């Protein structure tokens, strides 16, 4: 059953017609064209679909799109300002924390939620924050290094 759905994504208001059984991930990718958030497992286990809802890391693949109405949704597309990368994105590139890139938008959103709350996290806090983001390529070391570098302004 299609209904009008109003979402606020990266400070922009959107109104689309969507089926009531759509997940937030489907609407972001297929209706709004924001394909940065990825579907890895679709079952809450990999973190590739991580977006921020009111500043907290949530899984878009398990969120009913209609339940996200009225919330501030932030996706990876919302991080760069006027073409300038967010410090976490910038560090990720410089530290080689990206290989295939499929997990990258997800862990960067988890890292952003962490740094917004705790600008100078310990290594353990970084590891805990991204423990719900699986990466099959990098072995995590560079990811962790890049988040710590971003937190230190390096």
């Amino acid at each position: 059953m299609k209904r009008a759905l109003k979402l606020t994504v990266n400070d922009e208001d959107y109104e689309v017609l969507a089926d009531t059984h759509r997940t937030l991930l489907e609407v972001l990718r297929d209706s709004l064209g924001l394909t940065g958030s990825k579907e890895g497992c679709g079952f809450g286990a990999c973190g590739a679909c991580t977006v921020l809802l009111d500043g907290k890391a949530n899984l878009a693949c398990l969120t009913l799109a209609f339940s996200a109405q009225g919330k501030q949704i932030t996706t990876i597309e919302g991080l760069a300002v006027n073409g300038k990368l967010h410090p976490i994105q910038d560090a990720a590139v410089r530290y080689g924390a990206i290989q295939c890139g499929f997990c990258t938008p997800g862990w960067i959103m988890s890292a952003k939620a962490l740094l917004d709350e705790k600008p100078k996290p310990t290594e353990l806090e970084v590891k805990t924050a991204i423990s719900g983001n699986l990466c099959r390529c990098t072995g995590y070391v560079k990811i962790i290094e890049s988040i710590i570098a971003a937190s230190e302004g390096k």
Partner: protein
Amino acid sequence: MKLPRIDYLEAKTLPEACALLAQGDVLACAGGTDLVPSMKHRVKAPRAVVNLKAIGGLDYITYSEKDGLRIGALATLRDLQNNKSVQQKYPALVQSAAMVGTIQLQNMGTVAGNLCLDTRCYYYNQSSFWRSARPACYKAGGEVCHVVKRSDHCWACYSGDTAPAFMVLGAKVKVVGSKGERVIALKQLYSGDGQKPIALAADELVAEIQVPARAAGSGSGYTKLRIRKAIDFPLMGAAVWMQLEGKAGVVKDIRVALTAADSAPIEVPGAAKSIQGKPYSEENLAEVMEASYKKARPVDCVIGGSPPYRKKMARVFVKRAANLAYQQAQAK
């Protein structure tokens, strides 16, 4: 994977939500982290879901010496960990909430949804395509259990992390339904039946979780066996509450509960008898560990450890949880 076609409903109050549930074929969705995967797998395909998170004012956590701890139905596992009173008085609640899945799941998942978690089984939590290779099991509406052959009932495993912690703390839950409300001991929330593990009517919801104020000299702890340090459900989980008295730290009382050990979170009966009046030590804990081992009856329905191994681990994890509880109990 896509969701089946379902309608989306919102309620502004709990009674309104109960009225929607009473219409039939409607399920409650809080964080959705258990319900949405089940719907994607088509083991649940209701006509509609009612989003409880649209109800305001139910995410409270309050503590007073008189009323103890009160947790609203929509407080998240993250809220529970961040609450100062919970951190000071109930470490087992912080420990168990912090071990649920991942940070994202703790941000989304509610405490009430965690208590009402459906039982799990390797043959059930699968797509309809995967399941179509075998006859449907009891839990999926069929007439057979693929885990315990020739069994007349479902053996799916209760795998929630916070339930044993709440149980040893003596928690109660306030249940509301279209016909009014009642307060029951947490233990009574569980039927013990893998097929329908939560003993609530279709139009009933957990409105509040109530934990007695922390008694002097008491402490609690929770820990669990899992393959990875994140994401994984418990293969065996143990919570211990204990109270000490006197200078020598003599055990006055102890309560033990297990998860991933049966189709419900279970309390180990008579755990206190063997250690009451003795100083806390691993030696004096031996019979409590043994009783826990005997009480656990894991079956081969989850991946990650054989049932005999998981059963043996009940001893080890009860010991670890007891050490955690002792730490708090002996600190002032």
